């Protein structure tokens, strides 16, 4: 281990570090701008200058840019050297010549790296009296606010946007004093990771536009560690609130998961929590004149539940977006055989199969960090960018840095295509066959069976051969499948490819798999359910036949799961009682007899299991909207009040960790979830950890026209070790309980370097979360399973206009249920469409952007709706793409053949005038 002498003290430094990293790793203070652990060194700002000495006798030394110099054994440097300190001060003074004095009105103020560095270098007096250069800003869309005058030319933004993330539409223009970072022309930034500019920019050039609308200084924000709910990756987040509204989400560093980053869906999707369509109070449709408060509602519903249970007519639907705790309590109410986990049936089969596989294989389920460094990757039937956005960013790193050879099989060209060695545009059926053909090749059957070959487009065979060869030669191959295609065959093929890689390599490889899951707890609820509950199909039949007449639905919109809205609506109408717990108005809520408002993730505490199999705890950030309560609490009250047998234990469940412990005891696969974070009664020196910063201001100011006492009592909180206060333990707690990154002198998000063992590496005390499924030492598996493929229904016959395969197109913005209710995300959503290949469009007689009345025929059933036609020349000719997760397309779930008729053209209205 190299030893470096810094200001006459000797420090150990890890191999391969530069001097700046060596200094920061040892928690010494040295200012910097352009260097970033993930973006590397470019030496452009010169702020990290130090004196370096040749040897002990060298008293002169020379100024070096520390981020550009390797920390070699025996290196001698000085941070405190007066010449170096003066040089750093001058760098800031030069930058300040053009930087405006607008900190009081700048959104970055108070968490600005430039402010911190200015203070750190001691530049305090401005001597420059001339004019400052000014720029015109651009409208960069609904997420990012642009203020170019504040720029200090560190180039971090373009280095992240273009080099790191592979974006193309942010550039750097002009030269010298006029260097400008922006777009070629005004317009929304195209990269779905643009929000990271807010954190990457060391000053206020790029700031959070959603925060700007309800701005609060960092020191006034109330925050707690949380988990993103807008896909299954489980990115760690820090939502922050003030005065009852959620103000923003920033990334919470986790070196195993999201690192420094978040996608824009995760960062800007939070505003649904503040939405006008939140359910605020319990409501019943019964007209009995009784007030709909919690007590009467709970008592009434508990009565209904005990009766229904006695009759054997009770059932429940859980949810992949609800916590393990809520799902567990719900399952306790109705029993395992009457609990549906709330996934669409095909998705549930896919996820169950994936879990079975993981539990019986030596193949590792890839973490995001694993994905960053794979050398060959095969994506089967998934659009990684929209299904699991940060996995796209990880694959980008693998391709950029690890020379990853990427084979993509998705419906159309996407963001990752430019990195792909092979980019095939296949329907999910074909993608599954492509995977099966690779399995055949890997297993030494050089010619795949004809049936396989014939169903793939010409030329695909070569791609099979090349991909299989690359996978065989790979050290760390990764196979990715998705669930949004709703196609079992795709996952089956992915599993078999991974399996074949294990068995043909004799254990020399470490193959990885990943399944992109759409919701935060899809894996968790499937583990809880363990395949014991009824399918949605069986549940619907039971309702139709009257065997089930009371249904509780927890945080789930069944219309997103069923694929047959009319049948579902009829079934729900047939129920005697439908009880729905949710945050937002949904189609399911509309039909409910009882609606119980429940807390969003940022308003409650619980556990999610990410698509990696990582159990992670999230903690309440703010009080729930209106009268909303945490789901598991509502359900616990129902469980207790309905006096179910065995519900005595539930009497003891007064805090989340009690429920977590109960579910861990009941499910061996989940037994470790108690270990992932300290329980709610955890204290440090008998103190809670404050959610508010020590500098929080005005905590008494809001009501002081009427009363100067702090008369608003903070809500009772038994669930978390956090306090709704600025008072409490001011030291550093466990990493799973870090409510913010803040350190003396480090007010910006760069403060995270004070929490890492080595800058850019794991956190002191370990990254939070725990993987529940680690690969076993199993070298066999379903080896002989051969080339199963699962095909969708046969092509319909009869009088046809056109027969196309309807396939779901996953959208980054729009396909996910809750984020699409956030205004900024809604603005970025494409309106519902039908995507066609240009040739298909010609044969249907439709043109791009035209709006048409369409009639889809699936198995005798007809669906009519109007959609705008969009064209993509990379889409297979036999496919019609419909946006997944849109209410307009809720009638359809999995890929299927359908007749498509054009029954008319909708008059194009004048484009609506933009609201001023």
């Amino acid at each position, binding site marked *: 281990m190299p030893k470096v002498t810094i200001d006459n003290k000797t420090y150990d430094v890890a191999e391969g570090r530069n001097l700046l990293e060596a200094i920061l790793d040892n928690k010494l203070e040295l200012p910097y701008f352009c260097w970033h652990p993930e973006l590397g060194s470019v030496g452009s700002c010169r702020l990290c200058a130090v004196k370096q000495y040749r040897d002990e006798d060298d008293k002169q030394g020379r100024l070096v840019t520390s981020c550009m110099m390797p920390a070699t054994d025996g290196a001698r440097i000085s941070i405190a050297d007066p010449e170096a300190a003066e040089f750093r001060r001058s760098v800031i003074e030069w930058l300040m010549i053009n930087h405006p004095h607008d900190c009081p009105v700048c959104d970055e103020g108070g968490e600005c790296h430039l402010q911190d560095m200015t203070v750190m270098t001691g530049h305090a007096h401005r001597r420059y009296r001339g004019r400052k250069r000014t720029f015109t800003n651009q409208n960069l869309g609904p997420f990012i606010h642009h203020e170019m005058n504040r720029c200090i030319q560190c180039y971090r933004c373009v280095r992240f946007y*273009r080099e790191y993330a592979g974006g*193309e*539409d942010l*550039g750097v*223009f*002009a*030269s010298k004093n006029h260097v400008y970072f922006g*777009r*070629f*022309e005004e317009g929304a930034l195209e990269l779905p990771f643009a929000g990271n500019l807010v954190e990457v920019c060391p000053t206020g050039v790029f700031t959070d536009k959603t925060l700007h609308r309800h701005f609060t200084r960092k020191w006034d924000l109330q925050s707690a560690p949380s988990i993103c709910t807008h896909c299954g990756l489980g990115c760690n987040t820090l939502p922050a609130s003030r005065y009852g509204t959620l103000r923003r989400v920033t990334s919470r560093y986790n070196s195993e998961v999201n690192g420094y980053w978040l996608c824009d869906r995760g960062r800007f999707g939070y505003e649904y929590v503040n939405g006008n369509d939140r359910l605020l109070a319990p409501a019943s449709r019964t007209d009995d004149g009784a007030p709909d408060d919690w007590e009467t509602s709970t008592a009434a519903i508990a009565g209904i539940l005990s009766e229904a249970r006695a009759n054997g007519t009770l059932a429940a639907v859980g949810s992949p977006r609800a916590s393990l705790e809520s799902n567990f309590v719900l399952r306790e109410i109705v029993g395992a055989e009457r609990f549906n986990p709330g996934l669409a049936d095909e998705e549930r089969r896919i996820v169950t199969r994936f879990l079975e596989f993981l539990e019986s294989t030596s193949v590792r389920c890839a973490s995001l960090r694993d994905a960053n460094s794979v050398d060959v990757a095969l994506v089967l039937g998934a659009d990684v960018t929209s299904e699991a956005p940060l996995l796209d960013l990880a694959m980008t790193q693998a391709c950029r840095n690890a020379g990853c050879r990427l084979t993509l099989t998705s419906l159309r060209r996407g963001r990752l295509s430019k990195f792909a060695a092979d980019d095939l545009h296949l329907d999910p059926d074909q993608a599954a066959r492509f995977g099966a053909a690779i399995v055949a090749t890997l297993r030494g059957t050089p010619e795949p069976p004809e049936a396989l070959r014939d169903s793939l487009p010409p030329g695909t065979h070569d791609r099979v051969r090349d991909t299989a060869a690359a996978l065989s030669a790979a050290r760390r191959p990764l196979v990715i499948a998705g669930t949004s295609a709703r196609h079992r065959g795709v996952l089956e093929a992915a599993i078999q490819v991974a399996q074949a890689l294990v068995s043909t390599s004799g254990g020399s490889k470490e193959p990885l798999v990943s399944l992109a899951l759409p919701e935060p707890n899809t894996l968790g609820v499937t583990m809880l359910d363990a395949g014991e509950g009824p399918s949605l199909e069986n549940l619907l039949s039971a309702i139709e036949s009257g065997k089930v007449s009371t249904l509780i639905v927890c945080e789930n919109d069944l219309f997103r799961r069923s694929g047959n809205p009319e049948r579902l609506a009829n079934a729900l109408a047939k129920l005697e009682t439908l009880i729905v717990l949710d945050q937002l108005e949904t189609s399911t809520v509309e039909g409910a007899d009882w609606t119980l408002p429940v807390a969003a993730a940022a308003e409650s505490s619980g556990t999610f299991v990410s698509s990696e199999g990582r159990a992670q705890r999230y903690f309440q950030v703010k009080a729930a909207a209106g009268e909303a309560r945490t789901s598991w609490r509502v359900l616990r009250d129902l469980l207790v009040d309905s006096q179910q047998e065995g519900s005595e234990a539930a009497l003891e469940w007064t805090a989340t960790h009690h429920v977590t412990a109960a579910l861990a005891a009941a499910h061996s696969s989940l037994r470790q979830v108690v270990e992932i974070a300290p329980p709610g009664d955890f204290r440090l020196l008998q103190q809670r950890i404050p959610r508010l910063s020590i500098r929080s201001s005005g905590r008494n100011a809001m009501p002081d026209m009427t009363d100067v006492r702090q008369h608003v009592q903070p809500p009772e909180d038994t669930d978390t070790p956090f306090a709704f206060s600025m008072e409490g333990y001011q030291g550093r707690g466990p990493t799973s309980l870090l409510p913010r990154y803040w350190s003396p002198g480090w007010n910006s998000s760069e403060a995270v370097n004070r929490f890492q063992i080595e800058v850019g590496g794991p956190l002191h005390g370990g990254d939070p979360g725990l993987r529940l499924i680690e690969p076993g030492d199993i070298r066999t598996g379903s080896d002989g399973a051969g080339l199963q493929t699962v095909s969708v229904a046969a092509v319909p016959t009869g009088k046809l206009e056109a027969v196309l395969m309807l396939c779901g197109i996953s959208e980054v913005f729009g396909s996910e249920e809750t984020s699409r209710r956030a205004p900024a995300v809604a603005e970025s959503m494409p309106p519902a469409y039908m995507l066609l290949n240009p040739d298909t469009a010609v044969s249907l007689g439709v043109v791009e952007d035209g709006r048409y009345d369409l009639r889809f025929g699936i198995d005798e059933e007809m669906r009519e709706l109007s959609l705008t036609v969009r064209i993509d020349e990379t889409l297979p000719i036999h496919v019609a793409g419909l946006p997944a997760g849109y209410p307009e397309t809720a009638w359809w779930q999995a890929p299927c053949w359908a007749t498509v008729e054009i029954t008319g053209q909708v008059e194009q209205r004048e484009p609506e005038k933009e609201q001023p």
Partner: protein
Amino acid sequence: MLTPEERVELDEMRSHYPTVRAASVSVLKWLQKHRGYLSDESMRDAADYLGLPVAELDGLATFYNLLFRQPVGERVICLCDSISCWMCGSDRIRRHIENRLAIRMGETSADGRFTLVPVVCLGNCDHAPSMIVGDELFHDLTPEKVDQILGLEDTGSHGGDHD
């Protein structure tokens, strides 16, 4: 849109370079030569032709002094504003040109004949002050010589040097 003829000529030029990035400045220069300046449309044409992001190409176009992103006059006067020329009186030459053409630095004369822009050192310091007009380098400038170069001798009496 590039015409087929433009495409042929650009293809020929493109073939001299190992990569599209290497060819990009030449393509921009060629478009400017034939279209007078680089309009947004020309930038998009170049980006389409080269298969590069337009933001990246515009980074080049806005970086180089001699690539013009706005319409310019028939003759572009690039007056050196670096240190040697400044020491030898380039400010005086600048004011003279500005007054003669009734424009400021960076502007185009009303008749569309001249545009005046600054340029960095032309490597002609021993003959400062210097300027380029069109493709031609002029040195040891005096107000009279400038009038002669720009063909402004006969319009003599108005304007002039007031310092």
